[in-house]
């Protein structure tokens, strides 16, 4: 047995800690804990207000036991239809635009200038929250579903392009290289060497995005961008909690249905 081995045999072995200096590790852990305590202590809670509010909360939840689908049936139906149209249209437009941008935002296939521009578009789209974009677009285009459609298309581009680009960046290089070595054109190379690798991910993400767009379309109505959200907003304004409950149940049902369908499709395209 060598001396180096002799020294180690019989010794306990432990995984080396991520932060090697003991004092630094304890200061960081202790600091994080103190901050947590201080942060919780800084939250002001008006307990008497909570006590009053509980009644309203109970009334709201109680209305779910008697949802009113009928008295505002036409409004609800029109709102749902508008939301569905907004969802489908913005998803289709957003997905079609995000494919070229996603290709351009993948460093391993795009030249640097294209990459910078496409990453810029993605960054802008992701930096602006949907509600803020919707408020801006409602100001420009007026109330209604057009603003909502544009907002969701814009948000879809940021979401899908970024995740698509990341999938392309982690693709298997050798498959793409093999197609390039046959003397293929750039478009053929994308179609044969790259597309088959990102297609399942693209389909999965698109399904997921359709689902998000529907949920978002319910929120965007609150700032005047049309859809079922507008109907929901009106119901709240009139304190018609039973109608609001009916709308929420419809939204939840639709989202769960979309979730189920997208799960089925994603499982099939691997």
């Amino acid at each position: 047995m060598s001396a180096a081995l002799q020294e180690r045999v019989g010794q306990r072995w432990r995984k080396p800690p991520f932060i090697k200096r003991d004092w630094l590790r304890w200061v960081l852990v202790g600091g994080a804990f103190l901050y947590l305590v201080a942060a919780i202590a800084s939250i002001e809670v008006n307990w008497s207000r909570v006590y009053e509010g509980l009644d309203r909360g109970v009334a709201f939840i109680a209305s779910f036991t008697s949802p009113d689908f009928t008295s505002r049936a036409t409004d609800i139906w029109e709102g749902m239809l508008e939301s569905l149209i907004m969802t489908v249209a913005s998803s289709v437009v957003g997905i079609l635009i995000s494919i070229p941008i996603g290709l351009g935002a993948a460093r391993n296939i795009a030249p640097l200038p294209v990459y910078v521009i496409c990453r810029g578009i993605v960054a802008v789209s992701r930096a602006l929250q949907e509600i803020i974009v919707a408020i801006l677009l409602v100001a420009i285009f007026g109330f209604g579903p057009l603003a909502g459609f544009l907002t969701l298309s814009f948000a879809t581009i940021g979401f899908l392009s970024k995740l698509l680009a990341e999938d392309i960046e982690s693709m298997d290089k050798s498959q793409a290289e093999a197609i390039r070595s046959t003397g293929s054109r750039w478009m053929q190379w994308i179609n044969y060497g790259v597309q088959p690798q990102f297609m399942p991910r693209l389909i999965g993400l698109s399904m997921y995005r359709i689902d998000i767009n529907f949920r978002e379309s319910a929120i965007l109505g609150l700032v005047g961008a049309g859809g079922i959200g507008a109907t929901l907003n009106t119901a709240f304004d009139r304190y018609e909690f039973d109608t609001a409950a009916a709308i929420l149940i419809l939204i939840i049902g639709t989202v769960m249905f979309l979730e189920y369908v997208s799960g089925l499709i994603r499982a099939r395209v691997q």
Partner: protein
Amino acid sequence: MLRLVELDKTYPTGDKALKSVDLEVPQGQVLALIGPSGAGKSTLIRCINRLVEPTSGSVFLGDVDLTKLGSGALRRERRRMGMIFQEYALVERLTVMENVLSGRLGYVGFWRSFTRRFPQSDVDEAFRLLDRVGLLEMADKRADELSGGQRQRVGICRALIQNPALLLVDEPTASLDPKTSRQIMRLICELCAERDLAAIINIHDVALAQMFVQRVVGLRFGAIEFDGPPDALTPDVLTRIYGEEDWEATIEKVEGEDEDEMVTA
């Protein structure tokens, strides 16, 4: 037919992968390129069809200097060089037939390839090649359903349907078992003989190379250390290429095994 003149490759990291390599391969010759990992075998092959851009020097395929070509002309020349890869490099989610036909991409326009409507002659040739390597029944299977040896045979079809003058073969047997390795090497060499193709085969397994090829080139630190017939690979030469090791034992043993196999086969 293929001539490399003072080929140099220095990677941006400063690694000198190739140092002034001169090499000439006549038509129909199958050449094995051996050498330790990192000696530049893979780089050498990729510098020929410019999947890796050489730093300086020239590559002549016939009379054409490949290093001087623009992208369009390079694409046309790449059609004459079929490449077979380590780990097969088939596009896994495409069918076997699509993988084979992808070898014709350099010859057909975008819409034809996009809609998968290849000329009948290409389709017939693809079926003929699949039949030649014994995979006709697999034509419509997805590539990732095949075994390693089957995938590599599809890879061979993809290279051959290009109707190349030269095959560039990068570690064709690296992830195959010994028997499949021999079958694949035998297939490549037979096909080269049938079609009078030149080939450069990167290979780790020296004994396997000696069994099949007419000429061996040894690469060490990016320079040619040995160039000669397979039986001139003495333990001395192997030590010069790879470094110190007990070569007698390993080579003798493998050759012995091989004879056994021939007897039983």
